[in-house]
């Protein structure tokens, strides 16, 4: 069972980003974000920006906001560990709006033990940094949740993470 294959939710999420006038989409590739990345790359109204590491996303989206554009960051849970100082010392210090859509590894049917420690650290690390953290484990919740977090981030200039659960995405198969 891999509900990530359910037709529709990446397309609906892309529509949410468009409705929120998101113009810059920074991403570090992940299987869970594969379809959404393709949709954003094909969207002439969006800059889809592949990053070499997640912390570039804090800079990119801060710069986008300085220039009057809205952005979003697509990444995997292990990347949370890569951007701690940028989240604290840039995003939060300047109160830049930020929404990270974080696909989770290491929490539901994971086959790679190296993913488990960072998975456990994601929520406490982000909450320690002052981000609002919300989870989505069912496809029908994803649009409302992301739309609400985007609207709140841009209007209040605050930072949030939406964790897309591994139960929603399906675990990677090692064989």
């Amino acid at each position, binding site marked *: 069972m891999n509900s990530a294959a359910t037709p529709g939710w990446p397309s609906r999420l892309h529509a949410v980003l468009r409705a929120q006038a998101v*113009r*810059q989409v920074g991403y570090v590739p992940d299987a869970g974000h594969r379809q959404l990345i393709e949709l954003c790359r094909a969207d002439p109204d969006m*800059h889809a*920006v*592949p*990053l*070499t*590491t997640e*912390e*570039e*996303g*804090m*800079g*990119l*989206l*801060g*710069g*986008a*906001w*300085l*220039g*009057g*554009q809205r*952005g979003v960051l697509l990444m995997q849970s292990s990347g949370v560990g890569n951007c701690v*100082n*940028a989240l*604290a*010392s*840039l995003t939060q*210090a*300047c*109160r*830049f709006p930020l929404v990270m859509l974080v696909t989770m590894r290491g929490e539901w049917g994971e086959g790679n033990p190296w993913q488990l420690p960072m998975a456990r650290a994601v929520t406490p690390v982000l909450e320690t940094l002052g981000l609002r953290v919300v989870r989505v484990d069912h496809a029908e919740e994803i649009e409302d949740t992301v739309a609400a977090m985007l609207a709140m981030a841009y209007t209040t200039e605050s930072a949030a993470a939406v964790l897309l659960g591994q139960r929603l995405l399906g675990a990677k198969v090692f064989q």
Partner: protein
Amino acid sequence: MERRAAVASLLAARGPLLVVSGLGGTTWDVAAVGDEPRNFYLWGGMGCAVPVGLGLALAQPSRPVLVITGDGEMLMGVGSLATVAAQRPANLAIVVVDNERYGETGGQLSHAALGADLAGMARAAGITDSVTLEDLATVAQYRARLHEASGPRFAVLKVAPESPPMVLPPRDGVLLKQRFRASLG
């Protein structure tokens, strides 16, 4: 060359140029030329100056954007050069004020003193317009290129290992952000 003179030369008659400075010495250098709302100074987030400049350049494609940062700050976020190259923002210039030192922490040698060629790294990342400038006359000639929409471009300014007195711009990131956004109208 002397770093303050080099940065002042780059920013002479700056017109619509938007400036992002990396934390440490280059923030003091840019402030020394004169504080204004179209300067966004990083006081933290080491390694993030180039990504901030990239997001800004993509959002404001009709205005020239200049990132001025140090060699240590650039090295911490050096992967971002490949990210810039992939986007090819024509209005973005990146200038590294390279004293081959970590000047804010005691002057320890940076990798630029130990074999790393930053202009070569930028070129290899895909920013083909990448040069190293050794003297003020060349910097003064380079200034016009900051306003040409034919980037992205990258330049290393080789400067003397001196630490001129700090010139401190406002340090509240929220203030710097809001006044920058307001200045764009």
